[in-house]
Protein backbone atom coordinates (compact mmCIF):
# COMPACT_ATOMS: atom_id res chain seq x y z
CA UNK A 1 0.00 0.00 0.00
CA UNK A 2 1.39 3.40 -0.99
CA UNK A 3 1.83 6.21 1.54
CA UNK A 4 -0.81 8.20 -0.33
CA UNK A 5 -3.30 5.35 0.02
CA UNK A 6 -2.52 5.02 3.74
CA UNK A 7 -3.00 8.77 4.14
CA UNK A 8 -6.40 8.63 2.37
CA UNK A 9 -7.57 5.79 4.64
CA UNK A 10 -6.26 7.65 7.70
CA UNK A 11 -8.24 10.76 6.74
CA UNK A 12 -11.42 8.75 6.23
CA UNK A 13 -10.84 7.08 9.60
CA UNK A 14 -10.42 10.40 11.41
CA UNK A 15 -13.58 11.76 9.80
CA UNK A 16 -15.52 8.65 10.83
CA UNK A 17 -14.17 9.18 14.36
CA UNK A 18 -15.31 12.82 14.22
CA UNK A 19 -18.83 11.78 13.20
CA UNK A 20 -18.94 9.21 16.01
CA UNK A 21 -17.75 11.85 18.51
CA UNK A 22 -20.45 14.23 17.25
CA UNK A 23 -23.19 11.58 17.59
CA UNK A 24 -21.99 10.58 21.07
CA UNK A 25 -21.98 14.22 22.20
CA UNK A 26 -25.40 14.80 20.69
CA UNK A 27 -26.75 11.70 22.42
CA UNK A 28 -25.48 12.97 25.77
CA UNK A 29 -26.10 16.73 25.49
CA UNK A 30 -29.05 16.87 23.03
CA UNK A 31 -27.56 20.16 21.87
CA UNK A 32 -26.86 20.37 18.11
CA UNK A 33 -24.48 23.32 18.34
CA UNK A 34 -22.53 22.11 21.38
CA UNK A 35 -22.12 18.68 19.80
CA UNK A 36 -20.06 20.22 17.02
CA UNK A 37 -17.22 20.25 19.55
CA UNK A 38 -16.96 16.53 18.77
CA UNK A 39 -15.39 17.48 15.48
CA UNK A 40 -12.36 18.68 17.42
CA UNK A 41 -10.97 15.20 16.76
CA UNK A 42 -10.43 16.40 13.18
CA UNK A 43 -7.25 17.95 14.57
CA UNK A 44 -5.82 14.43 14.22
CA UNK A 45 -5.84 15.01 10.44
CA UNK A 46 -2.65 17.00 10.89
CA UNK A 47 -0.83 14.42 13.04
CA UNK A 48 0.82 12.39 10.22
CA UNK A 49 2.23 15.54 8.64
CA UNK A 50 3.66 16.63 11.99
CA UNK A 51 5.19 13.22 12.75
CA UNK A 52 6.55 12.70 9.24
CA UNK A 53 7.64 16.28 8.64
CA UNK A 54 11.24 15.12 8.16
CA UNK A 55 10.25 12.69 5.42
CA UNK A 56 10.59 14.75 2.30
CA UNK A 57 7.62 14.89 -0.05
CA UNK A 58 5.45 12.59 2.15
CA UNK A 59 2.84 11.32 1.28
CA UNK A 60 3.46 12.22 -2.37
CA UNK A 61 6.34 9.90 -3.19
CA UNK A 62 6.49 10.18 -6.96
CA UNK A 63 4.91 11.83 -10.03
CA UNK A 64 1.98 9.40 -10.15
CA UNK A 65 1.11 10.23 -6.53
CA UNK A 66 1.24 13.94 -7.36
CA UNK A 67 -1.02 13.42 -10.40
CA UNK A 68 -3.52 11.45 -8.31
CA UNK A 69 -3.44 14.03 -5.50
CA UNK A 70 -3.96 16.99 -7.86
CA UNK A 71 -6.93 15.35 -9.56
CA UNK A 72 -8.44 14.21 -6.23
CA UNK A 73 -8.03 17.70 -4.79
CA UNK A 74 -9.85 19.25 -7.75
CA UNK A 75 -12.67 16.72 -7.39
CA UNK A 76 -12.81 17.39 -3.64
CA UNK A 77 -13.22 21.13 -4.18
CA UNK A 78 -15.79 20.42 -6.90
CA UNK A 79 -17.89 18.44 -4.40
CA UNK A 80 -17.44 21.23 -1.84
CA UNK A 81 -18.56 23.87 -4.36
CA UNK A 82 -21.54 21.81 -5.45
CA UNK A 83 -22.61 21.23 -1.83
CA UNK A 84 -22.25 24.96 -1.13
CA UNK A 85 -24.49 25.84 -4.09
CA UNK A 86 -27.10 23.25 -3.06
CA UNK A 87 -26.99 24.55 0.52
CA UNK A 88 -27.30 28.20 -0.61
CA UNK A 89 -30.28 27.43 -2.85
CA UNK A 90 -31.96 25.41 -0.09
CA UNK A 91 -31.36 28.06 2.59
CA UNK A 92 -32.49 30.81 0.22
CA UNK A 93 -35.71 28.98 -0.57
CA UNK A 94 -36.36 28.01 3.03
CA UNK A 95 -35.81 31.40 4.66
CA UNK A 96 -36.75 33.77 1.84
CA UNK A 97 -39.90 34.94 3.61
CA UNK A 98 -38.11 35.55 6.93
CA UNK A 99 -35.35 37.69 5.46
CA UNK A 100 -32.64 36.20 7.68
CA UNK A 101 -30.95 32.83 8.18
CA UNK A 102 -30.58 31.40 11.70
CA UNK A 103 -26.98 30.98 12.84
CA UNK A 104 -27.60 27.26 13.39
CA UNK A 105 -27.90 26.87 9.60
CA UNK A 106 -24.77 28.89 8.83
CA UNK A 107 -22.23 27.56 11.32
CA UNK A 108 -22.41 23.84 10.32
CA UNK A 109 -21.76 24.61 6.66
CA UNK A 110 -18.08 25.13 7.45
CA UNK A 111 -17.73 21.75 9.18
CA UNK A 112 -19.89 19.86 6.71
CA UNK A 113 -18.16 21.50 3.74
CA UNK A 114 -14.69 20.65 4.99
CA UNK A 115 -15.76 17.11 5.82
CA UNK A 116 -17.29 16.61 2.38
CA UNK A 117 -14.21 17.99 0.68
CA UNK A 118 -11.82 15.72 2.61
CA UNK A 119 -14.05 12.66 2.21
CA UNK A 120 -14.41 13.25 -1.54
CA UNK A 121 -10.66 13.86 -1.92
CA UNK A 122 -9.81 10.68 0.00
CA UNK A 123 -12.29 8.55 -1.95
CA UNK A 124 -11.05 9.94 -5.27
CA UNK A 125 -7.47 9.27 -4.15
CA UNK A 126 -8.30 5.62 -3.47
CA UNK A 127 -10.22 5.22 -6.72
CA UNK A 128 -7.58 6.94 -8.84
CA UNK A 129 -4.82 4.93 -7.17
CA UNK A 130 -6.58 1.75 -8.25
CA UNK A 131 -7.60 2.84 -11.74
CA UNK A 132 -4.92 5.37 -12.63
CA UNK A 133 -4.95 9.18 -12.61
Amino acid at each position, binding site marked *: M*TDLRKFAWYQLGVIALGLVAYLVMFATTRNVMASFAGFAVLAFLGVPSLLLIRRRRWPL*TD*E*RDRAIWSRAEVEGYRVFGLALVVWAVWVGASFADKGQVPLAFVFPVVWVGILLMIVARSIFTLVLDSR*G*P
Partner: protein
Amino acid sequence: MTPKGSPFTSQIRRLRFEHGEMTQEDLAKRVGVTRQTIIALEANRYVPSLLLAVRLARVFQVSVEELFVFESG
Protein backbone atom coordinates in the same frame (compact mmCIF):
# COMPACT_ATOMS: atom_id res chain seq x y z
CA MET B 1 -2.55 11.08 -17.81
CA THR B 2 -5.69 9.16 -18.63
CA PRO B 3 -5.20 5.40 -18.68
CA LYS B 4 -8.39 4.57 -20.53
CA GLY B 5 -7.95 4.60 -24.27
CA SER B 6 -4.23 5.21 -23.88
CA PRO B 7 -2.59 4.95 -27.30
CA PHE B 8 0.63 3.62 -25.74
CA THR B 9 1.54 0.04 -24.94
CA SER B 10 4.31 -0.34 -22.43
CA GLN B 11 7.11 -2.79 -23.11
CA ILE B 12 8.50 -2.53 -19.59
CA ARG B 13 7.52 -6.03 -18.48
CA ARG B 14 9.17 -7.68 -21.49
CA LEU B 15 12.31 -5.55 -21.14
CA ARG B 16 12.58 -6.32 -17.42
CA PHE B 17 12.71 -10.02 -18.17
CA GLU B 18 15.18 -9.48 -20.98
CA HIS B 19 17.39 -7.63 -18.52
CA GLY B 20 18.02 -10.51 -16.15
CA GLU B 21 14.48 -10.66 -14.75
CA MET B 22 14.87 -7.31 -13.06
CA THR B 23 12.27 -6.92 -10.31
CA GLN B 24 9.70 -4.13 -10.29
CA GLU B 25 11.21 -2.94 -7.01
CA ASP B 26 14.72 -2.70 -8.52
CA LEU B 27 13.43 -0.80 -11.53
CA ALA B 28 11.38 1.52 -9.31
CA LYS B 29 14.47 2.35 -7.24
CA ARG B 30 16.57 2.98 -10.32
CA VAL B 31 14.15 5.51 -11.78
CA GLY B 32 13.03 7.03 -8.46
CA VAL B 33 9.37 6.02 -8.31
CA THR B 34 7.28 3.58 -6.27
CA ARG B 35 6.67 -0.03 -7.25
CA GLN B 36 2.99 0.84 -7.68
CA THR B 37 3.93 3.25 -10.47
CA ILE B 38 5.85 0.49 -12.28
CA ILE B 39 2.83 -1.81 -11.87
CA ALA B 40 0.54 0.89 -13.29
CA LEU B 41 2.92 1.52 -16.20
CA GLU B 42 3.11 -2.18 -17.06
CA ALA B 43 -0.67 -2.43 -16.99
CA ASN B 44 -0.97 0.66 -19.24
CA ARG B 45 -2.90 2.42 -16.49
CA TYR B 46 -0.55 5.39 -16.33
CA VAL B 47 1.15 7.51 -18.96
CA PRO B 48 4.46 8.74 -17.49
CA SER B 49 6.02 12.15 -17.75
CA LEU B 50 8.70 12.69 -20.37
CA LEU B 51 11.34 12.70 -17.63
CA LEU B 52 10.29 9.30 -16.29
CA ALA B 53 9.96 7.87 -19.80
CA VAL B 54 13.52 8.92 -20.60
CA ARG B 55 14.83 7.53 -17.30
CA LEU B 56 13.15 4.18 -18.00
CA ALA B 57 14.47 4.12 -21.56
CA ARG B 58 18.00 4.76 -20.29
CA VAL B 59 17.77 1.87 -17.82
CA PHE B 60 16.89 -0.52 -20.64
CA GLN B 61 19.13 1.24 -23.17
CA VAL B 62 16.33 1.61 -25.70
CA SER B 63 14.55 4.62 -27.16
CA VAL B 64 11.36 6.00 -25.62
CA GLU B 65 9.47 4.92 -28.77
CA GLU B 66 10.62 1.35 -28.26
CA LEU B 67 9.61 1.42 -24.61
CA PHE B 68 6.16 2.91 -25.18
CA VAL B 69 4.77 1.72 -28.48
CA PHE B 70 2.36 4.20 -30.00
CA GLU B 71 -0.49 2.14 -31.43
CA SER B 72 -3.22 4.42 -32.72
CA GLY B 73 -2.79 6.71 -35.68
